[in-house]
């Protein structure tokens, strides 16, 4: 066939692209082991059932956000850091980041909001340096938004 060179090159490139997730993860030593989440100590009951929180905690947080910011409702009981982190789940690195890093999710909340337990300096380090600590390499691209 005439365009042998082009076809073979393109084929190799295509296969490389197709198998990217496999060899990238291999090279980054990422395993299929699930996230190692630190469970809360103090309170025994979350604001909503676990199954709901697992699938829809982001919707709950957005609803709280709109209620507090746009509808002027009081912030107590509807704030991520004091209500969720300080009372039960500890710091962002111990809880939120575990699953988020594993799932390669980068919510932009932390661009503005603070993780008080970790101190104000950590967000800067967390943001500019790329994905925070632990099972970091699963996060593909940090757009820094």
């Amino acid at each position, binding site marked *: 066939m005439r365009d042998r060179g082009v076809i073979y090159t393109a084929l190799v490139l295509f296969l490389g692209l197709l198998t990217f997730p496999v060899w990238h993860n291999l090279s980054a030593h990422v395993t299929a082991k699930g996230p190692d989440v630190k469970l809360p100590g103090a309170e025994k009951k979350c604001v909503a059932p676990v199954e709901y929180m697992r699938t829809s905690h982001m919707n709950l947080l957005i609803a709280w*956000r709109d209620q507090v*910011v*746009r509808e*002027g409702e*009081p*912030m107590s009981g509807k704030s991520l850091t004091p209500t969720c982190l300080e009372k039960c789940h500890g710091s962002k690195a111990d809880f939120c980041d575990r699953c988020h890093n594993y799932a390669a999710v980068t919510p*932009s909340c932390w*661009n*503005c*909001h*603070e993780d*008080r337990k970790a*101190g*104000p300096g950590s*967000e*800067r380090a967390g*943001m500019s340096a790329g994905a925070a600590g632990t099972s970091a390499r699963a996060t593909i691209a940090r757009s*820094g*938004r």
Partner: protein
Amino acid sequence: MTISRKEFLRATGISLLAVAARKVKGAATTRWALAVDSAKCLKQDNCTKCIDACRQAHNIPSIPQQGRDIRWIWKDSFEHAFPGQEDPYSTQGGMPAMVLCNHCENPPCVRVCPTQATFKREDGIVAMDYHRCIGCRYCMAACPYGSRSFNWMDPRPYIKNPNPEFPTRTKGVVEKCTLCSERLAAGKPPACVEACPEKALVFGNLSDPHSAIRELLAARRHMRRRPELGTGPGVFYIV
């Protein structure tokens, strides 16, 4: 469920009345406003306590680059704050004015915002929703007072003494004075009002005829910035 036409009309009429009554009542209860007494402000030379208090309370960055600074409240000259009102024979020439967002009655910034990221609350505060802001800066073009600032870069590296009790903002959103709505929710006055050593800033509810600000405005002559534009500014300057 079947409902007769008469009942439907009656129910609708009553609900409409209730809504109207609520709106009328709501409009009367709170209208936050600020009064600035420049003469008192001048008593201390080079005082920046209100600016510093605001900066500290709200994690406002100190950006050295020309034209990129973030300002919520600052001091400007009389000529700048009240263009067209300067006259060479008055004593006001040279009297500085603290300028900030006027939390207008009829804000042009709210009118132009394409996502309602800036919106007017019932208590008169023109609020910002940083989550919704798309960074188009239309509100900055619309504000006739130059009260708004844009985050041209990530502000966090420029925040001295970050305050963990209040979030920062992120690059790409517009921000401005929020009349310390978070402090008002806790029953405290705005940070600048509290910080002023001469009590030059008076804060209160314009809808309450016995509030400090109403009594001050009744007793002293005052002016507002560019009132002819119909914006209904909520910051009064005692002259």
